[in-house]
Structures are given as C-alpha cells and as structure tokens.
C-alpha cells in the first residue's frame, strides 16, 4: 500500500516550500508521486529513487578511471590529505542541512583550513552590505499577510524561485491582503523584459550595471531633492522615478526583493548597501523591508550556523586555529583559487566545476580534489575522489533556513539504502583527523 507523506520540505530553491505531498512505494524505496511542487522540485524527488544514482565512493586511478571503494577508504583518503595540506578549502553547502554544515565547521577547524559557502559567488555581497548598513527585513509570512507594494530588483523569480510569487509575494490572499494581487502594486527593476517583468504593474528598464545611480535618485526624491534630479538617470526618465517614488512613499507595507542583478554587477555590496539606505529612508514615511532572494533551500543555513560558531557567515579563514578571520577578496573561494592560494579542495553539495571561472578550476585541479555530492556533476567528474551522500529532504531530514532566515524541519521520505548523510560522513572525517593530529603532536 503506497504511503502519503504530508508537509514535506522541498530541497530546491530559497522558497523552501514546506507544503509538499509525496507518495512513496510500500517498501519506502521509490517516490511515486509529488504534489504542490514546481517542475524542478519534482525532478529532485524523482531523482532520489533513480536507478542511476551512485551509491559507492569512487577514487580516481593512475590511468584516469574511477574505481569503487568503501566509505572507510574514502574517509581515510580525505582525512590523510586534509592532514597533509597547508591550506585546504571546503566550499559548497548550497544543498546540505544545518547538521552537515555544523559537522563541516568541526572538520575545517580541526584541519585548520578555509571554509566557504555558495554565498561567495551569490549573496556574499549582501552579507557585506548588511555588515555595513544593517538589515531591515521581515519574514515571508509578513509579506504575504501585509505587503501591498512589492519590488523585485535584479531578480527573476518566475524562473529562479518558481513558487515565490504565488506562495509569498504577489498572488496569495493574506490576513490584511484579502484581495491578493488585485490590491498589490508590483514593480520590477531589470535591464531585461523578464517573465517577472511581464506580471509587473511597472517595469523600470535600468541601464545594466547602473542600479546604484537609480537608488541614489530615489533617495534624493525621498529626502526632498526631487528638483535637483537630472532628466534621465540610468536610462530611466525622471517622471517615472517620481511616479515610483510616490508609490513607495504611500505604501502601507513594502518589500524589496533583490537578486543577482545587484550582487553581481559592478559595485556589488555597494548596490545592496544603498538599497538598504533607501529602505531606511522610506521608513521615515512608510513601512519598508528588504530581503535577499537566496538561491538554494538552505543557503541561509551556513550563514546562520557559522555565525554562531565562529562569528562570520562565509569566507572563513580557520588556519590560525585559535581565531577566525574573514575578508572576502582575500579569503573568498574564487579569489583564492584564481591566485592558486589553496592546496586541497573539497566541493560539497554544489558544483564548483560548473560555477567557477575556468582558470580557478584549473588551479584547483592541480591539487587533491574531493567532491561530496549525491549526483554526478562537473565537479564529481574531474575530482580525485567522489563520495556520494544522501539527498537532504529526500533520503535524510534536517533543519534548513529559508531565505528569510526562518528555520524549517525537513523530512526523510525514502530509505537511504546504505548511503551516509553529510553529518555522519563529516564527523567520521573529523574523528579520523583528531586521531592523526594526536599522533602528530
């Protein structure tokens, strides 16, 4: 008799939807049906019970082929190389649970290496802006129940966060927003006419890379200098800036959602920095909040876990053993890889092979490379050792942090069939490292 599991969390985007229904086979080994989830989320659940999954660690042989080995051998190989490396780097964590991230912190503290997460190529600049300027934010529940003006700035949830608009921002009918999208004003700021811009009331087609100037213009209007505004700012006419500023100032509750359009165009953290300054200005006349459109279902997790462990959310330098240091530009994964500053690389729960610049991957490839990931990806195919693990939210449960930093308990839906989860694997590596350190001391 197939079993239906309710209120399951979806391990795809930063929406971390927790209303999924999954039907599994009698023996608990196959996912039969998935409901309330986007097309991409469906595929992740289906992949969990695919016959093509790798179930044993694979070590590269001198002839270039991959040979199946045991978990014990893989743990020994990884611990030995971590022990020998002067400056190992562990990077990833887009797709692991907080328990795994805490175990990773233990491994890298013991090994004395660098620890970084996908924020470094994603919302890292948002962290830097938040350090500089604060974070007047809210939860997605408040957006659903209160917001009447929504701004998507440099983000395209229609493609990147498929259920964001329907579950939290534009369409849902909340406690004070009973008329749903009919009573909401949606503003999209993007150089492209995206599918999100298609559902907006106003689309500001900002000149690519000049968002900072447009924010500055809005701040001038809010601070009473509208008369000094030039006729056109960043390709947006003055009349349109005044119109949108008027809507913002009259909002009952407004939220700005920002994405890679701001964090990965010139200026990076300063684009977010000035967006936060604008939010602060708007709070003199209305109620405004701002939120980063975090990419993965638990990419907010390492920021939270490592902040309470070490005091910094990403780009951690733990080589000094008795204190942590952080300064992106120096301790960030891509910068270190481009400068050839690390001598071992562990890619976990992400795909550096696909996401990093080619010269960075070429430098990393010169040194031992371990990939810890449930799937075959570009990183696993060029690594020296590939260790398959459970898919969080499918083979193993755990705590994840949604994009608004709300913790959600994810559930296990199918039997892991012998696969180790990240937490167990990493703790075994840390145990072995402790032994090696004790022998070496």
């Amino acid at each position: 008799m197939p079993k239906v599991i309710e209120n399951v969390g979806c391990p795809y985007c930063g929406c971390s939807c927790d209303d999924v229904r999954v039907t599994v086979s009698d023996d608990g080994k196959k996912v039969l049906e998935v409901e309330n989830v986007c097309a991409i989320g469906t595929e992740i659940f289906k992949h969990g019970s695919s016959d093509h999954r790798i179930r044993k660690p694979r070590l590269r042989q001198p002839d270039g082929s991959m040979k199946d080995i045991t978990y014990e051998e893989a743990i020994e190989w990884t611990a030995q190389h971590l022990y020998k490396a002067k400056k190992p780097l562990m990077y990833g964590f887009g797709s692991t649970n907080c328990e795994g991230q805490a175990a990773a912190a233990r491994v890298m503290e013991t090994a004395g290496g660098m620890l970084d997460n996908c924020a470094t190529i994603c919302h890292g600049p948002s962290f830097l802006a938040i350090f500089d300027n604060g974070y007047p934010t809210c939860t997605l529940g408040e957006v659903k129940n209160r917001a009447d003006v929504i701004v998507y700035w440099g983000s395209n949830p229609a493609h990147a966060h498929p259920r964001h608009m329907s579950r939290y921002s534009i369409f849902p009918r909340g406690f004070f927003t009973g008329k749903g999208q009919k009573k909401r004003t949606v503003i999209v700021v993007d150089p492209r006419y995206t599918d999100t811009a298609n559902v907006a009331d106003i689309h500001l087609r900002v000149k690519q890379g000049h968002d900072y100037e447009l924010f500055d213009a809005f701040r001038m209007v809010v601070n009473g200098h509208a008369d000094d505004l030039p006729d056109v700012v960043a390709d947006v006419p003055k009349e349109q800036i005044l119109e949108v500023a008027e809507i913002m100032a009259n909002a009952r509750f407004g939220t700005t959602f920002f994405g890679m359009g701001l964090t990965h165009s010139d200026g990076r953290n300063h684009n977010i920095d000035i967006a936060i300054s604008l939010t602060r200005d708007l709070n003199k006349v209305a109620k405004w909040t701002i939120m980063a459109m975090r990419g993965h279902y638990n990419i907010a997790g390492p920021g939270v876990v490592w902040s309470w462990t070490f005091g910094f959310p990403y780009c951690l330098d733990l080589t000094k053993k008795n204190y942590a240091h952080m300064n992106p530009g120096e301790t960030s994964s891509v910068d270190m890889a481009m400068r050839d500053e690390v001598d071992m690389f562990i890619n976990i729960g992400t795909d550096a092979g696909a996401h990093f610049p080619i010269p960075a991957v070429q430098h990393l490839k010169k040194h031992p490379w371990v990939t810890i990931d449930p799937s075959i990806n570009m990183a696993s195919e060029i690594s020296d050792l590939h260790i398959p693990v459970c898919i969080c939210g499918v083979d193993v449960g755990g705590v994840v942090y949604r994009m608004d930093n709300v913790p959600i308990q994810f559930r296990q839906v199918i039997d892991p069939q012998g696969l180790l989860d990240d937490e167990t694997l990493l703790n075994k590596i840390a145990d072995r490292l402790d032994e090696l350190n004790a022998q070496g001391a």
Partner: protein
Amino acid sequence: METVTMTLVQHPELYLECYSVTPDLFAGKSLAEIADLPAHEGKIVWKLGDFFKFDGKSGATAAETRIIVNGDVHKMKRFGQQMTAGEILINSAADMYVGCWMRGGKITVKGNADAFLGIAMEGGEITVEGDATNHVGSAYRGDWRGMSGGLIRVKGKAGNDIGTAMTGGTIIIEGDAFIHVLTHADGGTVIIKGDVEGRVGGQMVKGDAYVLGKILYPLPGFKKVATVEKECDGQTYTFDQYIGDLGERKGKKKGEVIYGNIYLKA
C-alpha cells in the same frame, strides 16, 4: 637610524603572511631573534629566517629602525601591519594588506601593491610606485571607520573602493581609478589625477574628492554650485564644485548644512 636588510632566499609555495615585518617587532632584537619571528603559510607556522637572510642591525626603538626588503616578495602579505614608526622599503611588488591598520612611519613599495593597501590606516605615509588594486585606505568589512589619518600615494592606477568610509587623511591616485571613491565617507580627501569610471562620493556624508581627469558616469546626487580656484597636491587649478550626496543624511555646523564636495577640474 639603523637598517636591517632582509633578502629573499626561498619563495613560499602558497602565500606568506609577513605580519612580523614591522619596525616595532624588529626594534631592539638581534638578527637571530628577528629571524625567529613567526610567519604563517596556511596553517604552517614558519620563521622569517626560513625565507629571508638578514643583514645589518635594528635600532633600539621602532622610530630608529629601517627595514629594506630585497627579492621578489609579490607572494607575501601584511608588510608593516599595525606599525607605529620607522621605515620599510620594499624593492619589488608586494601582496595584500601593505600598511594595514598602520599608525605611523613610512612604507615605500617600488612595484605594485595588491588589495587592502593601508586599510583603516590612522597615520604615517605609504608610497606605491606601481599600481594598487581595490580597497585603498578603505574600512575593514563591517567597520564604519575607514582610513582616519596619514597619506597614501599611488603613482599608478587603482581599482574600486578608494577611501570607503574614510574619516580623515589623504589618498592620492596619480593614475585612473575604477568605481566607488569616498563611498560612505565622513571626512578625508581623495585626489584622482586620472579618470574615474563613476560613483564618486556615493552615500558620502562629508569629505572632498578632487578629480583632475573625467568622471564617466557622475552620480545624480551631486549638484554644481560654483567654480573655484583650489590648490591640489601643490598646484592650483580651476574646479567646478559639486555638493552632495543629496540623498544621504547631512550634519549641520553653525546652522549651515555641511555637504561632501567633488572638485572636478574645469
């Protein structure tokens, strides 16, 4: 003044953190004691003597100590960290953090210097004869107090984040700069003798930027108020004076609103 000459004999495999190379730590030590000072390469703690050969003699105090660094040290960072007095001369390019948190003394780099040159500097003088990159005299991440005193002179070009959150002191870039000059500044002076791509004075409360070349994309938050004659690095020019950032908070002094200034050569 006594001089210690350190000559590179061994390149590090990765990058070496030379936080011990300051007149403060060299002063009053014998050459053997200096060679025993620590330097980190990743998690390995080496001694300076593993990479350098030392000659000469150190002074009794930092102010009486001069350090000359010979050999290619472009893979070594943190020269002159937190130094208070004395001199360092680096005869090649150096890596990140030259003169970071420096409080006094003088550093000269004959080649290029990498990022975070003189961050959060409080006093003293840094001269880079080549180029600098990003974060010259800016604040450390999350700090709202950047460079507060002293002088940084870069004879080549620089990147972005020049004098971010600066509160005092002077930065002179003799070549071009990219974006973000004096962002978030609450004082201080930056002189760019070449061109700037844009974002000069964004979110600036107060401070002075002098640009002798062009600003490709000026910010909307700055308004032209006058044409003035002003002295800039020893020469007098005619400048168009812009005030701003009009979007940012402003203080008052004797009832007058204090703005940040951009002086753009007319």
